[in-house]
């Protein structure tokens, strides 16, 4: 029983780490309807910049804010160079543009900072949490801290969306871009804001994942883990990303631990997609996605 509890707990915590990446997708999808393939590359770029600044003996918070500034500059550049000429084009074409962007960012990040693997230590120990260990459950402190950070991040984002003027404008754009424009909301400004926020989320995700995996190219592969979360939760919902992350995390661990041994293991890659597919057969727009109404 205790073991079962541990499986679920560590699954939930792993799910939070997936959500951290998925939120970056959701933000951009929500505001500009772009399925941002480059999110992984952004995570890599942000983490690389951050860790290389740290290695140049720049203090933690200074490095953090410098990287944030870099991500904002990047957002402005992306809006100006990529998004603006492609405004009002079908989503799939913007999706393709982000594939190009992903190649570009990978090359840029590694061209500037080099392709060496960097270790990143932000001072959170990755050892079992003592209080729980005495009860027979091994949960890493790092995971708990990561969950805590994710919780703060989501709270801040939700507050931002609901309590600030810019946030409300963002919601308006995601609801109906044309109506939003007609009341004087600048679409370009909104895009810069969302890509910046998404850059910020990428930085946080990059630091958390980079601490665990080391900052290297593989960091951009965490997208694979975020995809089923994103689909299950619905493309437009931050809360959806969190809840789907928890569901996917817990159920994939349960499947791998309790079904895996009987079929030869290695279920972790495809199980989440099956789960999401079954869910979607009942709710075709994810758990919290916006339903498209079809008319002739």
């Amino acid at each position: 029983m205790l073991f079962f509890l541990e499986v679920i707990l560590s699954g939930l915590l792993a799910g939070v780490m997936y959500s951290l990446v998925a939120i970056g997708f959701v933000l951009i999808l929500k505001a500009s309807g772009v399925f941002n393939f480059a999110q992984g590359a952004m995570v890599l770029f942000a983490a690389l910049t951050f860790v290389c600044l740290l290695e140049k003996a720049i203090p933690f918070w200074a490095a953090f804010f410098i990287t944030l500034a870099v991500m904002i500059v990047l957002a402005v550049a992306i809006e100006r160079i990529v998004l603006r000429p492609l405004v009002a084009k079908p989503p799939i074409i913007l999706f393709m543009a982000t594939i190009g962007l992903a190649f570009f960012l990978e090359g840029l990040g590694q061209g500037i900072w080099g392709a060496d693997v960097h270790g990143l230590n932000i001072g959170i120990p990755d050892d079992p949490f003592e209080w729980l260990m005495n009860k027979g459950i091994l949960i890493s402190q790092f995971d708990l801290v990561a969950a805590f950070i994710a919780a703060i991040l989501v709270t801040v984002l939700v507050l931002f969306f609901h309590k600030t003027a810019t946030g409300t404008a963002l919601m308006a754009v995601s609801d109906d871009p044309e109506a939003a424009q007609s009341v004087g909301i600048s679409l370009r400004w909104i895009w810069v804001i969302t890509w910046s926020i998404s850059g910020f989320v990428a930085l946080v995700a990059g630091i958390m994942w980079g601490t665990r995996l080391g900052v290297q190219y593989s960091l951009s592969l965490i997208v694979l883990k975020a995809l089923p979360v994103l689909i299950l939760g619905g493309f437009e919902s931050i809360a959806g990303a969190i809840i789907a992350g928890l569901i996917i995390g817990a159920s994939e661990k349960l499947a791998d631990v309790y079904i895996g041994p009987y079929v030869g293991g290695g279920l972790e890659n495809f199980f989440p997609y099956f789960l999401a597919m079954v869910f979607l057969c009942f709710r075709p727009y994810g758990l919290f996605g916006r339903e498209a109404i079809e008319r002739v």
Partner: protein
Amino acid sequence: MLYRECGVFKSTYAEDMAIFPLPLDKWGMGILLIVAFLVIPMTADRYLLTSIMIPFLIYSLSTLGLNILTGYSGQLSLGHAAFMAVGAYTAFNLSARLDLPILLCFLGGGLMSAAIGSLFGIPSVRIKGFYLIVATLAAQFTIEWVITHWAWVSGENVLGAIDTPPMEILGRSIDTPVEKYLLTLVVVIVLTIFAKNLVRGKIGRAWMSIRDKAVASEIIGVSQFRYKLLAFSVSSFYAGVAGALIAFCHLGCVQVTEFELLLSFWILGMVIIGGMGSILGSFLGAGFMVLLPIYINRVVRMMAGVVPSDILTNLELMIFGGLIIFFLIVEPYGLARLWLIIKGKLRLWPIPY
């Protein structure tokens, strides 16, 4: 002036429905075929055949398959690489275990892939838009898992690789690059003509109606279930044949890792860059995504020795990504559209009014 449409009078229905109603197009295509069938095999060296032409043709075929699904029927798929794997492994097993003639192996690979593809297409009736990628992603990972875990599929080989047996057609062995190239070329051309006729007939119109307005097409009596599934199976059939060609004519020895998710993304990229809903676009897109990196690599490597090679490699990535964005901005609807525009210009050139 250069590209003339006037002076062509169609007097029969057959002429009206010809694939190339204009003499100029006919001649152009004829010259292209002569180059492909005679000039290239006679003049090209091994590098051009094995590393440029064969992969280019195979990926064009695969892209054509995805274009039928995504470009013509509007269904997004990220499982195309896995369907290619199904084709490759089925063809291998048919050839190694049953010793069937090679073309039948390709056909079998395609059919198997079509069957599995339509199975994973079933959710498309319910799930729409970007959400549909979940079904095809499930296909991608499940197929990879099955091939890795069921040793029987890869011929009980400890090394997990399928090493294709020698090919033979009517007692003549297909061994040299030229022969492999010609075999690929014939398969690609036959399937291209088939696709062209499919998309300009009743089925193609049904697909396009689903793509353009699903509800409306349902109302006028186009069965969504039947045509979506048909699109999935035809698309997977093409993928399967392309996968078999990769195993037999291109690499010769493949592991399942060749057919990773990233390849699915690449092929989707080929469709979009080339132009969705265009046969020509499939070829242009495959050319762009397959050949451009090699070309950039060769050009950039001219600087080897001056610039450190790790920077060069990343420079290649940046140029490639930059070019994708550049071409999308120049013509968001793909290279095929660019070709249409050029044709339009040639119609008036040199005296535009």
